[in-house]
């Protein structure tokens, strides 16, 4: 019987090595696998390359991982943003490498990684600083940039419901990067708010098939924090 559930965050994260590329899903803290991020901080792997939409906000989660000097390189679409204090400190000290990627290109590079497409041309960023050092080509009359796939050693995702095969569904805007990153790593680790019996998730509504998921841990994380703006 296939059963991808593990009993603890520690078991879920077992074996993540120094130097790994870690994809961390979530957007504005919604659908962010916070228990796994905290577990990774505790787990201790260093020299990480982290792929996440931002370079972290405040002093928790991805920001803390960076603040503790565990991240060699961050790949993101928002580096400086309100609250990116820890990143800015570490960056000012020259202790972290930064790769800025337009958000849609970031999503597409991850999708390409998961879909076995090693590189693609896109009009996004053509003729801008983002294209510096990249191959550019005019295709069908439009200037395009060649972008490379991103494939991680590990992906950390949060689902709303998961079954023992690792089939996943997401809640509302909690979907975001989760299904994309789930396809784009050697080891995909999921924290799920709810456990579904096999067969409870409608076959037409499953977003991530279990074949993309390696380990699932049940974490009733509750609602994302309410944003005060």
């Amino acid at each position: 019987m296939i059963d991808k559930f593990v009993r603890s965050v520690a078991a879920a994260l077992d074996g993540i090595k120094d130097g790994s590329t870690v994809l961390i899903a979530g957007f504005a803290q919604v659908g962010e696998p916070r228990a796994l991020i905290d577990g990774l901080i505790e787990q201790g792997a260093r020299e990480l390359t982290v792929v996440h939409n931002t370079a972290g906000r405040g002093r928790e989660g991805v920001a803390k991982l960076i603040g503790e000097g565990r991240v060699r390189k961050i790949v993101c679409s928002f580096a400086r943003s309100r609250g990116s204090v820890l990143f800015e400190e570490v960056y000012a000290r020259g202790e972290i490498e930064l790769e800025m990627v337009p958000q849609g290109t970031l999503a597409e590079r991850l999708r390409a990684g998961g879909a076995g497409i090693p590189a693609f041309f896109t009009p996004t960023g053509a003729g801008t600083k983002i294209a510096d050092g990249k191959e550019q080509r005019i295709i069908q009359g439009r200037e395009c940039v060649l972008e490379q796939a991103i494939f991680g050693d590990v992906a950390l995702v949060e689902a709303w419901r998961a079954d023992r095969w690792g089939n996943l569904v997401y809640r509302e805007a909690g979907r975001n990067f989760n299904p994309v990153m789930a396809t784009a790593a050697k080891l995909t680790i999921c924290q799920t708010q709810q456990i579904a019996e096999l067969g409870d998730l409608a076959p037409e509504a499953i977003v991530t098939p279990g074949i993309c998921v390696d380990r699932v841990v049940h974490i009733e994380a509750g609602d994302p924090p309410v944003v005060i703006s």
Partner: protein
Amino acid sequence: MNAWKPLERDELAARVASDIPEGWCVNLGIGIPTLVANYVPTEREVIFHSENGIVGMGPAPAPEDLNPWLVNASRQHVTLRIGGSYFHHADSFALVRGGHLDLCVLGAFQVAENGDIANWSRSENERAPAIGGAMDLAAGAQRIWAVMEHTTKGGEHRLLHRCTYPLTAKGVTVRVYTELCVLDVTERGFVLVDKVEGLGLDELQAKTGAEIH
């Protein structure tokens, strides 16, 4: 005293909103563009898209209806209209890049008469800025409207012959809305569509770094 009065932020947002027809799918950038949604009546079915995978975004919820799982790309709590749907980030930007958005309204630091837009960084040397989805939107939507202050607070031009800030995308802007006027961006350059009452063309031209036709 001026014989004319610039549009307030909300008036500007309303002016933009009045040009959006029913049935369009529209993405609104951060800042004044976000306000545009407030001036599109619900009966006029405009489908708002948010980069984080929302198609058919509705207005901000009443405080008691706030749903923590439903934020837009500007990290604001929003609602989903009846008929709305959710997609993952790659599919969401496939909609953007694939030309499925009729319009994106973007804030801008600078717009040039050749349609270039600069809205993500004020310096070539800025080391860790925020790109977000602006480049994807600027390159992907069917049309780009820029909403911006006509000049800097210090009176420097922001509508230019060519942008001096790092570009977001080349040649994509087709219309500019400012507190003073509406300009089309055409092959000839900026063409005046509309200006606030009482503002002379000479005065507007003086505030503009490229010829207004």
